[in-house]
């Protein structure tokens, strides 16, 4: 039976845990606001670039001179999974959900006899995947604080990926990240990164006048495609940053509430025990007095 002292200590420790989770929740809420704003600020660029690339791609006919980033290598034997998670835990199922989706897709492709390799951004995803596929880890990046990433970082990774692609290390690259929908819902998402996928219907903007190009369409396309890869990665990182904070906020909110419940229960137990002790004492005194 736990003594009164032990119960009191227990309550104290749960209370300080609650303080910490409460603080983490508030920090996550503040960071979420910022991450959300950042994700929104980046949207115009991504949208315009996508539209331009789509309209250019619809004009260019696939030939041997078409950039490989658009036409593909003509095979789909080796798939590279770029799995973007975060470096830090304590964010609910955020990292686990992304890793699970990647794993499911990977197993599907492996069952079809394809080779799957992993390129991880973020320590948490890497830890899970390395345990399952120790031989297929290609490269790992530790991005640090997702909220502080700049476009230069994404650009660097994109360049590295494109170089590997051109060296023939893989045929298709998929990007895994968590799309931010709301504080309560973040959806793990898979997206084809290389070759560049042209969204259907995006090029449907009919312009009345003929557009002039300088240099020609194909040269512009060759210039824009690598940039598009970087932008997609950057966008995914931004989404991830918002998702991570949203997920962390919910997780910490739950933890705070659980701690509250626990404190309530422990308090009741403590009071009950205190009363029992007092009653015993009284009984002792009264029976002592009666004996006289």
């Amino acid at each position, binding site marked *: 039976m736990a003594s009164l002292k032990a119960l009191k200590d227990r309550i104290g420790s749960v209370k300080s845990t609650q303080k910490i989770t409460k603080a983490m929740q508030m920090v996550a809420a503040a960071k979420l606001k910022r991450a959300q704003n*950042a994700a929104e600020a980046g949207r115009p660029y991504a949208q315009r670039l996508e539209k331009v690339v789509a309209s250019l791609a619809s004009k260019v006919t696939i030939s041997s001179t078409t950039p490989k980033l658009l036409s593909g290598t003509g095979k789909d034997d080796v798939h590279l999974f770029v799995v973007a998670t975060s470096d830090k835990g304590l964010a609910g199922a955020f990292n686990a959900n992304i890793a699970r989706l990647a794993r499911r897709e990977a197993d599907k492709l492996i069952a079809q006899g394809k080779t799957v390799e992993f390129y991880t951004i973020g320590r948490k995803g890497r830890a899970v995947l390395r345990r399952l596929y120790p031989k297929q880890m290609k490269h790992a990046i530790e991005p640090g604080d997702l909220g502080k990433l700049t476009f230069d970082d994404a650009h660097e990774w994109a360049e590295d990926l494109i170089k590997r692609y051109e060296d023939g290390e893989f045929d298709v690259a998929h990007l895994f990240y968590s799309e931010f929908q709301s504080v309560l819902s973040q959806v793990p998402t898979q997206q084809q990164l290389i070759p560049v996928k042209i969204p259907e219907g995006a090029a449907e903007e009919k312009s009345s006048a003929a557009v002039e190009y*300088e240099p020609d369409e194909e040269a512009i396309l060759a210039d824009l495609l690598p940039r598009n890869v970087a932008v997609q990665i950057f966008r995914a990182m931004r989404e991830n940053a918002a998702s991570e904070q949203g997920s962390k906020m919910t997780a910490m909110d739950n933890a705070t509430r659980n701690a509250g419940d626990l404190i309530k229960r422990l308090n009741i137990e403590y009071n009950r025990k205190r009363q029992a002790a007092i009653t015993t004492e009284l009984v002792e005194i009264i029976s002592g007095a009666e004996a006289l």
Partner: protein
Amino acid sequence: MPLHFELVTPEKLVRSEEVYQVVVPGAEGDFGVLANHAPFMATVRDGNLTVYAEEKSQPETIAIRGGFAEVNDKGLTVLAEHAE
């Protein structure tokens, strides 16, 4: 009639305003864009954008890197990786 000019980077929308003229450092030579310019697309070399808010006003320069310019009937949009 003023020209609608937008400068966008992956991190944010830097400018969105009505101006008189913008001179863009195109990959194959500088070009100036006034209102009602014909539709045009060009890659941009690293350099300075020169923005004239009014016809006779002092030009303002914005350094950009890694860019691309599009002129359509809505105006001029410059997509740049960096802008200062």
